[in-house]
């Protein structure tokens, strides 16, 4: 069997404050193979974002271990890209230098990496806005620029923490479609955290349902559509879509 890109083995984590301990994650195990798009849905505040912080190495699991390519995960931003809820493009930088921020921080600004970033800007239609300030761009274009900032580092694994939640519904649909296509085209492995069931089904190859806090893996649902070349947008009109929706909905309201 092919080795998984990412393996999470029996991970638990709790937050500590003066007033006590709050368990956030309990005994989570899962594996992600290369090129797969995984979506995690769960009740709000269940610890989904904590889980991503841990995959990125910002937090260390208290129990259990996380393996990347079979090796214990150390903090390696080089291999893992993280997209946050908002684009966080810096207003005091142009789009171009925002996109190069990651390379700059990791001291990887070489002619090749810069050319790669420029190619990404070109192929995703942002080269015209290279010298623009973030505020001159629409919400969708800003999110694209944020994705390119992450992709410029050529990460093996992309983590998406509700990256569309700051957008209005219409923009959200088209940006989700857009970003989904880009990730597929760049052949990236991705983990998307969302509370939007439709978004999860439309983008993912597998949907993982987290239980209430402390979060555990409640159910893993493989998503398969009969249509060829599915995109996030076309998936929404597939006949299987509503079955998956109902299945996940039931899981989420399982013990409510």
């Amino acid at each position, binding site marked *: 069997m092919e080795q998984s890109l990412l393996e999470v083995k029996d991970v638990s984590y709790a937050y500590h404050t003066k007033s006590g301990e709050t368990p956030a994650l309990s005994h989570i195990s899962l594996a992600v193979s290369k090129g797969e798009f995984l979506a995690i849905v769960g009740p709000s505040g269940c610890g989904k974002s904590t889980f991503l912080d841990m995959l990125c190495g*910002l937090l260390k699991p208290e129990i259990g271990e996380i393996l990347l390519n079979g090796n214990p995960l150390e903090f390696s931003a080089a291999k893992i*890209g993280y997209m946050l809820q908002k684009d*966080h493009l*810096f*207003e005091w930088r142009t789009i171009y230098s925002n996109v190069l921020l990651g390379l700059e*921080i*990791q001291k990887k600004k070489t002619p090749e990496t810069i050319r790669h970033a420029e190619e990404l800007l070109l192929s995703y239609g942002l080269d015209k806005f290279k010298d623009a300030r973030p505020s001159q761009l629409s919400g969708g274009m800003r999110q694209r620029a944020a994705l390119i900032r992450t992709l410029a580092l050529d990460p093996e694994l992309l983590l998406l923490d509700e990256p569309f939640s700051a957008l209005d519904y219409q923009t959200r649909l088209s940006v989700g479609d857009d970003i989904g296509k880009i990730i597929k085209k760049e052949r990236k492995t991705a983990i998307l955290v969302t509370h939007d069931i439709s978004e999860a089904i439309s983008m993912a190859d597998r949907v993982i349902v987290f239980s209430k806090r402390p979060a555990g893996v409640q159910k893993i649902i493989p998503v398969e559509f009969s249509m060829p070349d599915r995109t996030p947008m076309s998936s929404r009109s597939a006949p299987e879509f509503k079955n998956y929706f109902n299945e996940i909905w039931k899981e989420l309201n399982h013990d409510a």
Partner: protein
Amino acid sequence: MMHKLSSMSAEQKTYLQGQKRNAVLVQISRFLIFILFIGLWEGCARLGIIDSFIFSSPSKILYAMTDMMRNGTLIQHVSITLAETMISFALVTVLGIASAVLLWLFPRLSAVLEPYLVVLNSLPKSALAPLLIVWLGSNMKTIVIAGISVAIFGAVLNLYTGFCETDPDKLKLIRTLGGSKADSLFKVVLPSSIPLILSVMKVNIGLSLIGIVIGEMIGSKSGLGYLIIYSSQVFQLTTMIMSIVILCVIAILLYGIISLIQKCYLKKYS
């Protein structure tokens, strides 16, 4: 422009004209108050309604000013006060930012020092000036330190508070990109704090001037602060009021320069 004007609706034209008239009225009123004040002062002094020996008059002040300009003493006093203010302002800015950065870098240090900073900041700094003169002697260095002492503590506290209010998600972004604390500082905290730094500078330039004048009043042989104290002792009220007027002008000019820089920055980045 002409085309734009002609394509405008009548209501829009009326609105814009109303706005313009309002702005002009405000300007004219401001100017009139100034003229009225000067005229009233001069008139009352000439008619003997107020004692021009104590209250002086605009013409006397103007005369004293040209006189002192001619023998060079005024330039000397003004330039000394200006130089001391600029030096202390520059040092306050540099030291203030550096100390706030240190406090931000080392949270434990800031936790330890916070009560001391708060006490030093709430202390009436003019009380320190006589002590500084005794300790350091009456020279330019002491005056500059007096200027710094008035502004520095507030500057550090304001800047530090501002640095701590940096968007935590932006800092998280830097960490997810593998950045260090230095990256956070130079790529997020400092650039996002430039508007704050400019507004703190605007306050500090005035505070530095206050500190310098206090210092000059009690421990100097030159500068406008000295001129005020000296002329009060020899009862030359015209010179004294003239010095105050010049201080007023200096304060407005210095504040204006920083405001201009601030405006340019905000225009470019917002």
